[in-house]
C-alpha cells in the first residue's frame, strides 16, 4: 500500500507554509514544525498493518487531489441553515481550516480568552510555550505529527482560575466542499485553570458533496480541581474523512466529562487519550455512533492511570445500520503507582442489518495490584421479544424498533449538560433512526 500521491501533496503544502513565514522561519514554533514534519515523513500515513489501524483503511485518500486552506463563500445564511446553528454560546468558527470572524461570536468575558492560534502566539506566548504540542503524541503517531507540521491555525481557549462559565464555548468546523476536495489541519489548545469549570462543544459539519480530509488535534489541559465538559458532535457528509485526536491532560482532583457523538461521517476516526497526571481525578467518557450506508466510525480511547486514587468510567454505544462499520478500541493502563484505581469500560452495540459490522476490543493493562477494573463489550440485535411486546400493544414494528433504538441512544445523550444541545441531538437521532 502506498500513499505517494497524498504524501507528495502534504510535502508541497509544507514547503508552501515554509515559504510564507515572513522571517519567522527561525522561531521555536517553526523548529517544532520542522521536527514534526520530519517525524511524519518517517512514520507516514498509517496502513492497516498498523495494529491501531487494523480495521480502518485510509487507502482511498491517495486517490484524491486536495486543496489546502481553500477559499469559501460560506455565509452566515448558510450557517443558519445547518443544524446546531442556533446553539447559544461563545463561538469560534473555521471554514476549510480558516478562521471566519463573521461566523464567530468571541464574546467579551474578562476571564476567558478565545483566540486564534496566531493571535495567541502574539498575546499569550507563555501559555503557548507551556502547553502547545506538549501533550499530543507526535513521535509515534504519523497523522498527529502531520498535524503539528501543517496546522497554521486553530483555536486557543484559556479559562482563568476560579471561574465558572455557564454558557458553552462552541468550536465550529465547516468543510465547504461544494466545488473542491479540501484538506484541513487544525490544532486547538484548551487550558482550564485551577478550580474553574467550562463546557466545550466541537461541531463538525459539511456543506456540499465533495471530499474533505480533516486531520485535527485538540489538546486539553485540565488544571487542579477544574471541571471540563467536552462534547464532540460530528455530522459530516459520506465522502468526508475525519481523523481527530483529543489529548487530555488532567491534574489533581480534576474532572473531565466527555461525549463523542457521531451522527454522520464517511470515515471517522476519533482518538480520545486521557492522561491522569495526579490524584483523585475523575473522568467519564461517553460515546454514541449511529452510522448508516457505508459509513465507518472508529473510536479509539486511551486512559492512562499514572497515580493513585483515580476513577475512569467509560460507556460507548453504537447503532449500526445498513453496511456500516464500527470500531471500538478502549485501552486502559493502570501503572504501578496507580493503586486504588477504579476503571470501568463498557461498549454496547446494536446491529440492525446483516451487512453491518462491529469490531470492538477492550484492552486493559494493569501493573498495580490494588485496583478495581472491569470491561465489557456486547454486540447484538434488538430483542425480538421486546419488539413483539410493543407490537402486541398496537405499535407497528418499525416504530417499535425506533423507540427502542432512541432509548438505547438516550443513555449517552442524557449525559450532556447543555439542555438545548441535548434536544437538538434527540431530534437528529430520532430522524436518523427512522
Amino acid at each position, binding site marked *: 500500500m502506498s500513499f505517494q500521491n497524498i504524501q507528495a501533496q502534504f510535502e508541497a503544502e509544507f514547503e508552501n507554509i515554509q515559504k510564507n513565514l515572513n522571517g519567522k522561519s527561525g522561531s521555536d514554533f517553526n523548529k517544532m514544525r520542522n521536527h514534526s514534519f520530519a517525524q511524519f515523513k518517517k512514520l507516514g500515513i498509517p496502513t492497516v498493518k498498523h495494529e491501531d489501524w487494523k480495521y480502518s483503511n485510509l487507502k482511498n485518500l491517495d486517490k484524491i487531489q486536495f486543496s489546502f486552506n481553500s477559499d469559501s463563500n460560506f455565509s452566515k445564511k448558510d450557517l443558519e441553515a445547518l443544524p446546531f446553528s442556533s446553539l447559544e454560546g461563545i463561538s469560534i468558527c473555521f471554514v476549510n481550516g480558516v478562521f471566519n470572524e463573521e461566523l464567530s461570536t468571541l464574546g467579551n468575558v474578562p476571564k476567558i480568552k478565545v483566540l486564534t492560534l496566531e493571535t495567541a502566539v502574539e498575546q499569550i506566548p507563555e501559555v503557548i510555550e507551556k502547553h502547545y504540542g506538549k501533550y499530543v503524541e507526535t513521535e509515534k503517531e504519523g497523522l498527529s505529527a502531520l498535524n503539528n507540521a501543517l496546522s497554521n491555525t486553530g483555536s486557543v481557549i484559556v479559562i482563568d482560575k476560579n471561574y465558572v462559565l455557564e454558557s458553552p464555548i462552541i468550536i465550529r468546523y465547516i468543510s465547504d466542499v461544494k466545488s473542491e476536495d479540501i484538506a484541513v489541519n487544525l490544532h486547538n489548545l484548551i487550558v482550564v485553570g485551577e478550580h474553574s469549570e467550562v463546557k466545550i462543544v466541537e461541531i463538525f459539519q459539511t456543506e456540499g458533496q465533495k471530499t474533505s480530509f480533516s486531520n485535527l488535534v485538540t489538546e486539553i489541559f485540565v488544571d487542579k480541581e477544574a471541571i471540563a465538559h467536552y462534547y464532540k458532535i460530528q455530522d459530516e457528509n459520506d465522502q468526508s474523512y475525519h481523523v481527530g485526536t483529543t489529548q487530555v491532560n488532567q491534574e489533581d482532583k480534576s474532572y473531565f466529562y466527555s461525549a463523542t457523538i457521531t451522527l454522520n461521517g464517511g470515515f471517522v476516526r476519533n482518538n480520545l487519550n486521557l492522561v491522569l497526571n495526579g490524584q483523585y481525578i475523575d473522568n467519564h467518557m461517553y460515546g454514541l455512533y449511529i452510522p448508516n450506508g457505508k459509513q465507518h466510525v472508529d473510536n479509539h480511547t486511551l486512559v492512562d492511570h499514572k497515580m493513585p486514587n483515580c476513577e475512569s468510567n467509560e460507556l460507548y454505544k453504537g447503532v449500526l445500520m445498513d453496511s456500516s462499520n464500527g470500531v471500538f478500541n478502549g485501552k486502559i493502563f493502570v501503572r504501578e503507582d496507580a493503586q486504588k484505581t477504579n476503571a470501568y469500560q463498557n461498549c454496547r452495540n446494536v446491529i440492525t442489518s446483516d451487512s453491518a459490522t462491529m469490531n470492538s476490543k477492550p484492552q486493559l493493562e494493569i501493573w498495580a495490584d490494588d485496583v478495581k477494573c472491569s470491561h465489557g463489550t456486547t454486540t447484538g440485535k434488538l430483542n425480538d421479544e421486546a419488539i413483539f411486546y410493543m407490537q402486541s400493544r*398496537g405499535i*407497528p414494528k418499525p*416504530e417499535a424498533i425506533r*423507540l*427502542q433504538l*432512541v*432509548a438505547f441512544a*438516550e443513555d449517552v445523550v442524557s449525559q450532556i449538560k447543555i439542555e438545548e444541545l441535548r434536544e437538538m441531538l434527540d431530534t437528529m437521532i430520532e430522524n436518523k433512526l427512522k
Partner: protein
Amino acid sequence: MLKISNLQARVESKEILRGINLDIKPGEIHAIMGPNGSGKSTLASVLAGREDYEVTGGTVEFNGKDLLELAPEERAAEGIFLAFQYPVEIPGVTTINFLKTAINQIRKYHEKEPLDAAQFLKLMKEKAKSVKIDDQLLRRSLNEGFSGGEKKRNEIFQMAMLEPSLGILDETDSGLDIDALKIVADGVNQLRSADRSFIVVTHYQRLLDYIVPDFVHVLYKGRIVKSGTKELALELEEKGYDWIKSEADALEASMV
C-alpha cells in the same frame, strides 16, 4: 366474537396445537387449563400473533375478521390484548411514553386524532387509580427493575388503558403471592363488561376463585380434551390432571 376452528400450529418442526376449536361470545370468560407443555401459552401467543409459531391449519375469526391475516399491532388495534406471562423489560422507554405511543398508534389505525398530553394524562390518572398502580412506577422505564407483582399489575393497567374487547391473560397468576393475585384479579373484574371477553390461561385453579369463569377448558397435547363450567376447575384442583391425561390418551389410542 372469537371463533377458533381446528387451529394447528408448530414451532420449528414440533406440532404444538393440533386442532383447537373454541367459540367465545361477548362478555364471556373462558379459562384454559392444562398440564405443563399442553399448549396453553402457545394458544395465547398464536392469537396475539407471535412470529415464533407457524400456523399450519385452521382458522380464527375475530369480530368477523380473519385474525391470522393481521400483524400483531393490527390485532391489538382490533381489540386483542395479551397480558404476558413474562412482561418484557424495556430500558429507557417509560410506561407513560410507551402507552401514549400505543394509544395514539391505535387511534391512528382507526383514523382518529391522537390524544394530546393533557387528555392522555387525565386518562392515565383515572386508570392508574382504578387498578391501584403507583404513578411513580409509570414514570420509570417499562418493567425495568419491577417486582413480579408490579409487572403483572402493569399488564392489567395497560389493558385498562387500551380497553380491548378480548383480554388474554397468559398465566398472569404465576409468581404472585395471594395479595398481589387479589389486586390483579380485582383489576380484571373491574374491566368485565357485557361486550368484553377474556381468555384466562392458568395452570392452577387458584386464580379462578377470584376471576370466576363461565367456561373451563382443559388442553392436553394441543387439543381441548374436556370442557365444562367452573366446577371442572375445582375437580382438577382436587384430582390433578392425571385422570384427564389417561382418558385422553385412551381415546387417542382407540382412534388410531
